[in-house]
């Protein structure tokens, strides 16, 4: 039994002499609203009153009506469920349920409603204000609770708050659905950018429903093509809008013959002088900047022109398993300074090489996992979807990775046996750092375990020993332990054939002995034992530049 405090006084003031008993609604009403409620609508809010006590039910019903709402009543949780299932939860803006009813409690109805439509606000009326009951109601999703006896003003206030909450919640859901649809369009646009090229591989994940990373491809004259990969600062609707704006502008300008450089300069000016102009940014909040890498290919894809504005330098993986960063004339991102003029650099590729690009979001994911962007690229491009999803789940930014095998004439990607090199490491180490070899080795171990989690411990140690020996040799002998001289190590994998290739180079003069001769340590000579180790552990060792470049293959 519920009691309404001051009810009669309030009813008199409202022009009522006595409440009229309202029977529970026995059948669903016909005029249901299909659309969720929204502010400013012409129709009134609809409230479902659930109470087994007819007196209280009628009082609450009238109170809701007096407050300007449409009210429907039910005498039990089961009856309330029937009404909601028939009318649809979206046709109600609030449910007011008594806690203690025969059969199911108001709390049980609340749980059902939460599963059915979490946006529908529920007020629980209780005579039991024990802390654990209230806690359970609030944890269960109740928007509010009212103690009996009910204060009529408190009831109407709570009702209005709950209705507002439902309306806000549903409006938010509509907005989120719209943003998700925008994100899906963005995702499809990126996938469309690589459609029709089997080997052109892309991994993309927006931090939120939409993101600022983008990729677009368009044909150029003479059968060439342009790849534009970019990253608008931020990862929200604003970034998404800027990304779409840039792509539209780029497409229109380039399709009408404007040179790429002019287009980039023009957009930079637009950002600096208009979007980010003082006075304008105050309203729009953070300044908009775009990091973009434009890659122009000729028809053979062997001559490439790269323009880079604030984007991570792309990498190339050679057909013999070496990885190098492509040095570009990188400028600031577009949108920072008015005098930013992206300059292009020209590069020649060989058939079978691969170009890799990634947005800085990948660098952040790699950093979080303590691995190089190269290792992360290899894993994201090749791992099972579950592992990729796991790695990207906590990514702090949008992530976009692009892999593009060069030379489409040969189309090596068409071969079922194509087993490209995937990079793991690219390090440059001063000769003076030979004392850090343990730390370097620990890092290599971490990278290799990350990329090939199932590699046997024994094989991993063999590989580490080979890397350690060859890098120490390069640092100590090739670089003469000097800080100004540097040794480089790159490691790539052929994942299908389970082959690791390490390339170690130094700036030294090389040597005049044959490393292949140093297989045997039984002569107790205390030199060249490292070469004996390398020769015995590796599948093959190739020496170039008189030993200042070693290419070592190890099967794993």
């Amino acid at each position, binding site marked *: 039994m519920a009691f309404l405090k001051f009810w009669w006084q309030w009813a008199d003031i409202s022009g009522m002499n006595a409440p009229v008993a309202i029977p529970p609604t026995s059948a669903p009403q016909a005029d249901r609203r299909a659309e969720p409620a929204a502010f400013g609508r012409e129709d009134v809010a609809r409230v479902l009153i659930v109470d087994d006590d007819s007196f209280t039910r009628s009082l609450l019903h009238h109170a809701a009506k007096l407050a300007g709402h449409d009210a429907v009543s039910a005498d039990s949780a089961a009856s309330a469920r029937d009404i909601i299932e028939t009318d649809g939860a979206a046709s109600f803006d609030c449910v007011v349920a008594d806690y203690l009813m025969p059969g199911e409690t108001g709390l049980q109805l609340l749980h059902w409603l939460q599963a059915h439509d979490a946006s529908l606000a529920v007020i629980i009326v209780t005579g039991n204000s024990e802390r654990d009951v209230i806690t359970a109601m609030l944890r269960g999703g109740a928007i509010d609770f009212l103690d009996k006896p009910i204060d009529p003003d408190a009831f109407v206030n709570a009702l209005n708050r709950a209705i507002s909450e439902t309306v806000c919640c549903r409006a938010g859901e509509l907005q989120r659905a719209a943003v998700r649809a925008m994100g899906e369009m963005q995702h499809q646009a990126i996938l469309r950018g690589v459609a029709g090229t089997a080997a052109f591989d892309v991994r993309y994940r927006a931090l939120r429903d939409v993101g600022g990373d983008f990729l677009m491809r368009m044909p150029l004259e003479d059968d060439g093509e342009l790849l534009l990969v970019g990253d608008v600062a931020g990862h929200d609707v604003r970034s998404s809008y800027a990304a779409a704006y840039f792509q539209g502008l780029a497409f229109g300008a380039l399709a009408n013959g404007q040179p790429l450089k002019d287009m980039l300069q023009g957009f930079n000016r637009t950002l600096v002088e208009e979007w980010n102009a003082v006075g304008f940014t105050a309203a729009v909040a953070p300044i908009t900047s775009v990091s973009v890498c434009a890659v122009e290919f000729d028809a053979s894809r062997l001559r490439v022109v790269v323009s880079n504005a604030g984007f991570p330098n792309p990498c190339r993986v050679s057909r013999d398993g070496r990885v190098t960063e492509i040095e570009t004339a990188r400028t600031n991102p577009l949108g920072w300074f008015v005098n930013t003029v992206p300059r292009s650099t020209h590069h020649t590729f060989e058939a079978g090489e691969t170009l890799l690009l990634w947005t800085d979001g990948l660098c952040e994911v790699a950093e979080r996992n303590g691995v190089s962007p190269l290792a992360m690229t290899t894993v994201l491009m090749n791992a099972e979807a579950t592992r990729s999803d796991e790695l990207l789940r906590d990514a702090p930014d949008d992530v976009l990775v692009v892999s593009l095998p060069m030379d489409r004439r040969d189309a090596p990607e068409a071969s079922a046996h194509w087993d490209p090199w995937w990079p793991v490491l690219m390090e440059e180490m001063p000769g003076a750092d030979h004392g850090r070899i343990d730390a370097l080795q620990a890092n290599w171990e971490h990278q290799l375990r990350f990329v090939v989690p199932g590699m046997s411990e024994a094989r991993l*140690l*063999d590989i580490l020993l080979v890397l350690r020996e060859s890098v*120490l040799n390069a640092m100590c002998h090739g670089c003469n332990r000097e800080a100004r001289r540097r040794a480089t190590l790159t490691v790539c994998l052929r994942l299908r054939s389970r082959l690791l290739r390490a390339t170690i180079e130094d700036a030294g003069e090389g040597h005049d002995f044959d490393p292949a001769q140093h297989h045997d*340590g*039984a002569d107790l000579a205390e030199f060249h*034992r490292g070469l004996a180790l390398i020769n015995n552990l590796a599948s093959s060792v190739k020496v170039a530049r008189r030993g200042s470049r070693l290419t070592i293959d190890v099967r794993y």
Partner: protein
Amino acid sequence: MPTLSTAPSTDSVHVIIPGDLTSTSFDQAKLSVFQAMADADARRDPWRTLRIDLGNARMVDSVGLNLLVHVIKHVEQHGHHLEIVISHPSVARAIAFTRLDTKLTVIRRA
């Protein structure tokens, strides 16, 4: 840098290397091994065998192998013999294919 401990015995000298035997642990390992032999000689122990326990080593690199070569030469010069205890397959492989196993006794520990 790992710490080294020695376990002296009357007819043999024991040295335990607690981790990898590599370029970075070389100095301390060398000091420890030669100190153990010098201590045994000072005590006039009738030792014949030097046992280096590499059971905890996952890796022995070329500098580590060179230390073993150096020690082999030293003990042979004084009429002694070197034994090494190993447990990791990678260490066993390095010892085997550089044929150091022909110059010392390898004791494998599971």
